[in-house]
């Protein structure tokens, strides 16, 4: 059904190429449901876009349903593929009714509109939305919208369904519903599915789990079983936990003994000697949420969360997509107001402050690194950090901050010529330079490779331990999580690749 051989996909940028896929190999059998796991930036979405023909490989090859990847065109995609995006707001047109959305692909293929409408109605009934067929997505909940998106993706009975975090923005119940529907619809039509997800519910419907890291498949597993590590042309990626236990060696001896492969580290720092910044004793609570509830329409993202964030501690906030990680950061920054409960900063409630006062508070006390840093493209890395300090009215060390994030050779490069990961590091430097008491970071390693992710994690830990900031980091990345002093799970069901 799907075969990918030595797939490379390089995205060119002014700073040079960014490698999204680095020799990825994958085979999916007909009728199989495969769930792909991996941290942000590991190449999962790029894999799906390549398989759907929306991207072309830079090197390597493969085929989908017997058609070479390079030959996948609009017609093939229309007839054989179903695409499901995590952002249902992006994949559903706000202007089409649910029936129209579900029937659209059939109509684009030239089917009778009446027949397409009837097929759409059947599907909507199957997912419990028969009475919403004439409504527009805006009037539906997130879960309902994603159900509509699922129907739209399978209405034309594709041979292959490609889903990218299909329950990413849903709560647990809705996520379970969506995955159940996917299971029913895909197996019911005998289709094959490749699902990218962090969600435990996805693992529950999978025939196989595939782990992707740095653009390669590093391991595979059957649900409920330990993963087996992929050996590709002799390359194996050893899991972080194992490496950590053996002192992160850079050289190992290998021997085959009794049908087993034995690896013996030659160098490596004993675990005890590992120079991780020692966590200082946690300081006072800098920011806290008390019985906080956050609702978007009918959708409840945070439900009665109470938690304090202390100075000198790195806290990782984990949860699947849509669990409320970013919402929590925004609440702590005063960028959103809770539907119920209270948020405090430095012991003072944010509830009574005006929007302008909250901005003033952030200027002095809070630094937020968002997923899309708003750098000014034509300003250099140094100028962007200086701008951040100018806006805060702060004196800082912009140059030092950039050196800290490993961009000492990129100080005078315009931001437009930096890679996505480098831009992310500039944003982190901008936040570090401000030396605020509360540092909020949203998916800081999303576009970083493992090495940079590790160093970023160390940097954030240092900011907490050495500078006494309360660092709160929303992340999926196990590399970051393992460096955190504390971890908060917002859904309790996240499957994240901390083992990898």
């Amino acid at each position, binding site marked *: 059904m799907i075969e990918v051989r030595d797939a490379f996909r390089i995205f060119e940028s002014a700073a040079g190429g960014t490698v999204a896929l680095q020799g990825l190999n994958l085979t999916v059998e007909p009728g199989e449901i495969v769930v792909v796991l991996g941290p942000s930036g590991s190449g999962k979405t790029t894999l799906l876009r390549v398989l759907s023909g929306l991207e072309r490989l830079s090197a390597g090859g493969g085929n989908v349903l017997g058609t070479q990847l390079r030959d996948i065109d609009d017609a093939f995609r229309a007839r054989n593929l179903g695409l499901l995006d995590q952002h249902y707001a992006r994949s559903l047109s706000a202007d089409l009714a649910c029936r129209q959305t579900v029937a*659209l692909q059939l109509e*684009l*293929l030239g089917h009778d509109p009446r027949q397409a409408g009837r097929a759409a109605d059947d599907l909507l009934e199957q997912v419990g939305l028969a009475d919403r067929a004439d409504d527009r997505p805006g009037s539906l909940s997130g879960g309902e919208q994603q159900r509509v998106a699922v129907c739209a993706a399978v209405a034309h009975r594709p041979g292959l369904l490609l889903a990218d975090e299909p329950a990413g923005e849903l709560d647990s119940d809705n996520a379970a519903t969506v995955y159940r529907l996917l299971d029913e619809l895909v197996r019911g039509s005998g289709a094959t599915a490749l699902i990218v997800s962090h969600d435990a519910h996805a693992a529950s419907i999978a025939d196989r789990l595939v782990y992707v890291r740095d653009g390669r498949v590093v391991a595979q597993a059957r649900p409920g079983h330990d993963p087996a590590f992929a050996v590709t042309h002799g390359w194996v990626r050893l899991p972080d936990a194992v490496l950590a236990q053996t002192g992160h060696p850079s050289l190992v001896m290998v021997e085959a003994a009794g049908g087993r492969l034995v690896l013996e580290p030659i160098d490596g720092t004993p675990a005890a000697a590992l120079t991780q910044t020692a966590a200082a004793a946690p300081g006072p609570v800098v920011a806290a949420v008390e019985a906080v509830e956050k609702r978007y329409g009918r959708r409840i993202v945070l439900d009665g969360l109470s938690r304090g964030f202390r100075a000198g501690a790195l806290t990782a906030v984990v949860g699947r997509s849509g669990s409320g990680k970013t919402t929590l950061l925004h609440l702590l920054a005063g960028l*959103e107001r809770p539907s119920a409960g209270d948020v405090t900063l430095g012991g003072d409630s944010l509830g009574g402050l005006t929007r302008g006062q909250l901005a003033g508070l*952030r200027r002095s006390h809070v630094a937020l690194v968002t997923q*899309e840093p*708003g750098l000014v493209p034509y300003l250099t890395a140094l100028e962007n950090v200086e701008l951040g300090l100018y806006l805060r009215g702060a004196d800082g060390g912009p140059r030092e901050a950039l050196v800290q994030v490993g961009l000492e050779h990129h100080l005078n490069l315009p931001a437009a010529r930096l890679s996505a990961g480098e831009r992310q590091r500039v944003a982190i430097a901008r936040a570090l330079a401000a030396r605020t008491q509360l540092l909020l970071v949203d998916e800081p390693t999303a576009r970083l490779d493992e090495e940079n992710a590790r160093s970023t994690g160390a940097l954030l830990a240092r900011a907490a331990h050495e500078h006494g900031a309360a660092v709160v980091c929303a992340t999926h990345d196990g590399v970051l999580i393992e460096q955190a002093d504390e971890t908060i799970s917002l859904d309790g069901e996240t499957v994240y690749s901390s083992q990898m």
Partner: protein
Amino acid sequence: MSEAVVRQGAQAERRSLRWRARAPLVVAAARLRGHAGRAVLVGAGIAASIAMLVGVLGGSVIARDRAVQRAVAALPASQQSFRVDAFGLAPGQNYAQADRTIRRVLSSLTSTAPLRAMFFRELRVAGGLVQLASLDDLGRFARVRSGRIPRICVPARCEVFELGAGGRAAWDQNGIHLVRVGRGVIRDRALFGDFLQPARESNGARATLLLASGSAAFDRLPAFEGIFRSYSWIAPLDPRRLHVWQIPPLLRRESRAQAELARYTDAYELSGPDAALTDARAKGRVSAQRMVLIGGEVSTLLLGFALVCAIGLRRGLAAERRRLLERGARRPQLWLAVGAEVSAMSVLGALVGVAAGAGIVAVVAARAGLPDAAVLGHSLGSPLGVALVLVAWLAGTAAVLAAARARETTRSGLRLLDVAALGAVVTVGVGLARGGLNADTLAAGGDATLLLLLPGLVSFVAAVAAGRLIGPLMRAAERAVRQGPGALRLALLALARAPSRTIATAAFLIVSLGLALFAASYRATLERSARDEAAFAVPLDYAVSEGSQLVLPVAAAPLSRYRRLGTPYPVLRLSGTVAGPGTSVLSPTVLGVPAAALTHLHWRSDFSHLPPAELASRLGADGPARLRGVRVTAPDVSLPVRVRGTPVRLDLAVADSHGRIRIVPLGERGAGVWTLAALLPRGTRELLALELSLASAQRFGYFHREAEVGATGAPAGTLELGPLRAGAHTLTHWRGWVARGGARLAHRRVTYSFTQGQTILLRLPQPTDGHALRVVVSPEVASAAGPNGSITLDLEDQQVPARIVGVAARFPDADQQDEGFVIADESRLATALDARLPGTGTPGEIWLSGPPQAEQTLRRAPFAVLDVASRRAIERSLAGDPLARGMELTLGAAALATLVLAALGFWLALVSELRDERGELFDLEAQGVSPDTLRSQFRLRAAILVAFGALGGALLGLILSRLVVALVRVSAATETARPPLRFEPAWVAAAAGLGALAVAAALIVELTAKHAFRGDSPERATWSLE
């Protein structure tokens, strides 16, 4: 069976194809419903532009139509008709037959039944001179003062109506029995031309005009058989029912009618207002060509607005396109979805625009008294109108589609635009190098393509230039204010970080404000041109000159009478020649104008680099001159003379207290001693000169010999002069007198020789003797001058030496194309001329500076015999010209509409910017920038864009206006402009427009900012969805 299967398969395939096409259309329809507000905005902009285009088309037809009607209405009544004048009937035709033929021919030209008339030359009946005529429907034309309208005309009694008074009650002679039954006047007398002008006898007595009822009245009288008569069939034209689109077929029918009449006889003459119609049509074509300019401006604006819309639509369309792609839409389906959405907005906008424009045109046409349906049919409904609207709609739609699908500007893309802009500059340059377009070239078809493209090309160059400048300028400005206020820095950052959006908005503002300024300035230029044209024709307020009765202004009334009306300046206008380049000769206009008058003339600085005060000073540096003479003490003069040689004629040149010169003959004498005497005219004050010329017989013989056998010996002789006496008083003993023109005076003896048959003059030395006349000349004359600027004016056989003291490119009322002009001080020129030949320096014109009320007085006696031109009247006429008014209205409307579109486009751009910048704004607020600062930066950013737009727009408007003024050398009334158009920037209108736009922009910014930054938390950026 297989055939049925195949057929079914084909049908299924066709159905499937229809459904595949339907799906993207459903998406497009849904998007339109979902974003109705934006669709309405886009449609409104397109509608406004199309409405303007339709308005321009319709307005052009209305203006041209009114111009035609005005031109025909301005004709004398006798020419406002199609008429056949028959000087006798065709062989073999009687009157009834001729009547039928001619009526049939005239019916093809006008639906009005022709008025028939018969005219006789003056006849002597019963000892009295009468002029007879008979008219149909006499009762309609005659205004009875006494008696009644004639009823019958039979041999025994032919009732007639007398025009005027003083005739007899009856005329009886040899079978002619005319009985006057009424008296009065005839209405619309001018309709009959000269036919009803009474002839005069040699003793001055006038013939009595008698009219009978019915055109064939006199045909019933045998007594008139054989008497020559002429016939007229007059079909008056109602100018209000004549339309510009009827002219070509009308002229063609007239040609056919003329040919048909010629088949019968040459004596049937068909005439009509051809010249006026052709001229009006040509003028209308000029106006239409110029309207093309406005059409080009509108199209440019439409494209600019479309591009701004496209920027706003781009993101939404891109997202929809991505969704459809993921759903498996094929490329044609993607194009269909996007194209349908854009086309629907533009089609609806175009339809609304056409309807609105048609409505406006219909209202304007109805108010102008024109048939609205016909006006629309010949404007919007014409092939050109349909094509223009279609092309405008297509161009706008294509521009929106292209811009909506374009990626962000890359460096290589800008280079392509640079090349295109350079091409545009070259195109405009080549077009300009081909020379300006005057009334003749425009009437012949002109260069419509260049006119249509000119605003677009220049605007395109301006937009590309702005695009090149804006990015670096904003970045440099941001660097300059890094230590300055935060809001300002953020504003400049926002402008610099998204150059394509900033460029698009700024370029649109530059183009729309530039076009608005162009429309306003060109309008002001045309208005100024009308004033300049009137002032060029009448340099002060009034110009009084000789009328048809050949009475000079100074003869009709003394200058003191003119002084009661204002400040009069006598002016001499002469024909003369000067040497031209090489051996050629120029025939400049020679004007003698009082030097002091120059400072009061309506002057333009481009007439000369010297100001009028300086020219006046140089011209009058020698001071005024006056002819010296001898005071006369009594009217009876005597002069003893002795003549030896050729007989001579002697005259005295005398002047009265008003300076009027008369020649008083003393007589012709041959050899011998004589005492000549004469009675001087009443009021004579001075003796100016004694003129000596050949006696009549000798003059005739001399010139006859000259012509027959060529030069012969010149008649010569001597004349001894005794003292000239007036009464008992001796006026002069001739001491100190000089002789001019081929004679020598010494000791009272004149030795003469008539080498050219000339007039010899004896006079006192005059102030102009030996002094070259100071003159201001045109460049053509100056370029052929001798050393020290010396020229010789050859004025009707008088040679006047002159010296150039100044050069002017133009002089009011002295426009002699390519021949130039020569201006001198009137008193010195007049004195110089009178000193050579008394009476030749009499001013023929008076330029009067006076109030409006003086116009009425100048229409009455004693000025009624003169020709009076009023600058104000000319201004009024030019301002009231329908073509001028149409052009000015259109330009005014274009300027206003352009400003409205500028505001609309600005609003659209702001809304799009805020939507596109949600992420950046969120990030800024996350870093601690307060909402107040964000609002301030938004206001500052908008202000910077408007300021940039205003500055760039001012520059663009100035450049475009100057280019158009240089290229289209035609006045508002579509004549070749004299003096040439001079660019008049409409600063006041521009300031007012900019002020209004600034207020609108401020309102828009405030409303938009209030909406964007409302709420107690910032809006999440689209990427922040967790």
